[in-house]
């Protein structure tokens, strides 16, 4: 009457969540920012995105095959695409093809597969690759194209786009300039005050909406925030890491701006610039490389924020999100070891709670 069922434990029903669905939701949430990046920087940006994804997928296939794992199921879980996608969003949109190809391959092979594949990596693969690229190819990684909206007059057409990405480009120096963060850093080393260097270079509204030069998916704080809200609403991420990161950046920048407004940018400047938004919602929240307890996530997020601001302010590089995330990734196992939730019926130290006389004798 009933089919013979295997001996199997509960639960026998399951929440709708799945790994591929999670990955797909993150992709979907970053689509507005990515779409805007492709629109703003035209064909070369799209080319770079596709090259990075292709390189990551090929590397993933190679890694899975060498590890003797089932290729098809793991390749299409969405994780490799997502890694490449997030990496591409942090690259200069007109970077040459080999930046994307190397980055995609590095992220998957060194960042993920050598650790044992999905879920095993210590560092966020995309950020590890970005850091490696930045250190190895500083020129290509800091050449920022000015906005050249797709199909707009004066923007590269499809063929020119191919030429820009794949090498025989007309020199793009004339079409590029420093990012706001880079400009401020350079100006500071030349002895200019902040108000001097920001004049004509930074307007909060531009920075929020994103019609400025920068990484492919980082320029529009509003669109990244929109994606972040979707991730929160879908419960793909929790709010602790982004909020802790924003709070740390805002607190430090606010404090130092108050001390010396001509030296230190204010909170809005820091929060809306560079990769702060993308980093907080899409990068630092990577589940694999962030702590699993809520208190651990507070520490991790605050650390990411503080390091980002410190590197931006006193470090050698204008932007610090990637370094900050990778550094905090290294601390994640330590945080996870020491910061655990309190177990029911036990103190934080792990000892059983002592019943009080009142508990024993009177009804609550």
């Amino acid at each position, binding site marked *: *009457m*009933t*089919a*013979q*069922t*295997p*001996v*199997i*434990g*509960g*639960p*026998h*029903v*399951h*929440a709708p*969540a*799945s*790994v591929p*669905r*999670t990955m797909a939701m993150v992709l979907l949430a970053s689509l507005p920012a990515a779409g805007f990046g492709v629109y703003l920087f035209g064909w070369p940006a799209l080319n770079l995105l596709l090259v990075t994804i292709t390189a990551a997928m090929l590397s993933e296939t190679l890694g899975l095959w060498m590890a003797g794992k089932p290729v098809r*199921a793991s390749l299409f*879980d969405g*994780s490799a695409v997502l890694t490449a996608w997030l990496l591409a969003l942090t690259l200069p949109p007109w970077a040459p093809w080999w930046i994307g190809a190397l980055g995609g391959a590095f992220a998957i092979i060194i960042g993920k597969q050598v650790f044992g*594949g*999905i*879920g*095993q990596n210590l560092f966020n693969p995309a950020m590890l690759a970005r850091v490696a690229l930045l250190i190895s190819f500083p020129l290509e990684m800091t050449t920022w194209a000015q906005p050249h909206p797709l199909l707009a007059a004066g923007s590269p057409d499809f063929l020119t786009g191919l030429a820009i990405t794949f090498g025989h480009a007309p020199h793009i120096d004339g079409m590029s300039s420093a990012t706001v963060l880079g400009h401020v850093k350079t100006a500071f080393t030349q002895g200019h005050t902040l108000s001097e260097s920001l004049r004509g270079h930074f307007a909060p509204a531009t920075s929020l909406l994103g019609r400025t030069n920068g990484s492919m998916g980082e320029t529009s704080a509003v669109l990244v925030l929109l994606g972040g809200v979707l991730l929160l609403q879908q419960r793909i991420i*929790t709010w602790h890491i982004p909020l802790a990161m924003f709070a740390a950046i805002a607190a430090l920048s606010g404090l130092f701006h108050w001390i010396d407004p001509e030296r230190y940018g204010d909170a809005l400047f820091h929060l809306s610039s560079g990769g702060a938004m993308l980093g907080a919602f899409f990068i630092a929240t990577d*589940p*694999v*490389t962030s*702590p*699993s*307890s*809520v208190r651990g996530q507070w520490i991790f997020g605050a650390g990411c924020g503080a390091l980002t601001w410190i590197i931006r302010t006193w470090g050698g590089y204008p932007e610090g999100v990637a370094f900050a995330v990778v550094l905090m990734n290294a601390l994640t196992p330590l945080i*996870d070891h020491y910061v*655990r*939730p*309190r*177990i*029911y*019926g*036990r103190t934080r130290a792990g000892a*059983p*709670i*002592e*019943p009080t006389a009142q*508990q*024993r*004798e*009177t*009804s*609550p």
Partner: protein
Amino acid sequence: MIRLRRLRFRGGVHPEGNKQSTSNREIEPLPLPARLYLPVQQHIGAPAEPIVKAGDHVLKGQLLAHSEGAVSAPVHASTSGTVVAVEPFTASHASGLPVRTIILEPDGREIWEERAYGGDPLTMPPEEIAVRVGAAGIVGMGGAAFPAAVKLNLGSRQAVHTLVINGGECEPYLTCDDRLMQERPREIIDGVRIMLRALGADTARIAIEDNKPYAVAAMTAAAAAYPNVHVTAVPSLYPMGSEKQMIQALTGQEVPAGKLSADIGMVVHNVATAHAVHRALRREQPLISRIVTVGGGAVATPRNLEVPLGTLVSDLLDACGLKETPARLLAGGPMMGMVLPHARVPVVKGTNGIIALTREEVSARAERPCIRCGRCVNACPCGLLPLEMAARARHGDINGAADYGLTDCISCGSCSYVCPANIPLVQYFNFAKGALATQREEKRRADETRRLAAERTARLEAVKAARAQQAAERKRAAAAKAKESA
């Protein structure tokens, strides 16, 4: 008093309730089946010992097997009829292994055994109540099936001030407690008052999930006359029905690790157990039937049935009809219920539901590697790190898993339920708990052996020493004698 504290516990999950198909349908009696199969073990503890043999005619409510030892429960005849055999029969257990079972053929006359009136339970000595509850074969009817009398006796050993009555019914599909509370609230409240007396407790707190508004209303009305019986609507959050979590939600207190709720003066019983206590003490009826929810997507007409214990699951499914062959047949709810090997197993005292799930409902998906998303951490009502425990249990590192709090896990399955990688976390933990228990037992045995060996060595040494001393004394005495005689 204004309650500022939220009535909840850490974590928890919100599985789809699926209760609407049965929560508005009255409890219906199931007609007597052709045969009843009464296992001698329907409870936690020692199996009962049969006192009838094939060919005996028995009356309804007559004792068939008496309890053995302190933690055990007797078995009674669910109806009048003839014992056709006492032999092994498939148990209501995932293993499908047989247990000793009394097989009864009803005569259809439902003749009760004559029983003397036992007196008013509310004036009876408290110990007497526990004895009678034990004699009625009552066990925890929420599913755990722990002999109820043992838990009613706790009051004599330590002060119990609060009786918590569990009307949570947090498992999806199940509505048997809901219907019982809606239809028989006065009987339940009476049972609660009898249990209060048995425990010597002063307050009863009845917790009902807020997805059962009719049950809350009915119980509140029935309890209105008794100022020490309080009904509280608690949030619908799985595993609210877990004893520790219910105490936390209701009182904000936690049962200390490794202790019982009685150590903080509380005892938890299920609403159906209270109902059974009422029947036993007021109507002199032992536990011979129970309400069972028959549900799940594969069932044509889901309903709550009042079922004589020992009825085959197949009889229940026949009564409700099947739309399709179930992909999985469960005793209990879909979160913690167990898979039945087939439908030819009897309903026992702890069977609160028979759930026949379709393939879509089971939604079995392939397991993937953990992506450390931490959903299990957020879902765990015990504050554990399921992902870390599973990573260790999986590699046989039982002590590593224990360091992460394995023994504090209540096996509720919230972690498995939310895991996007479909990792059967709770199965790892159940395996590891078994391995840990074996390990501890082996260690205990080895220690015991070592102790006995050491004692034996010491004893032999002592004997040797005593002998040596005796010999020396004899020698001395002989020498003295020789000296004397010389």
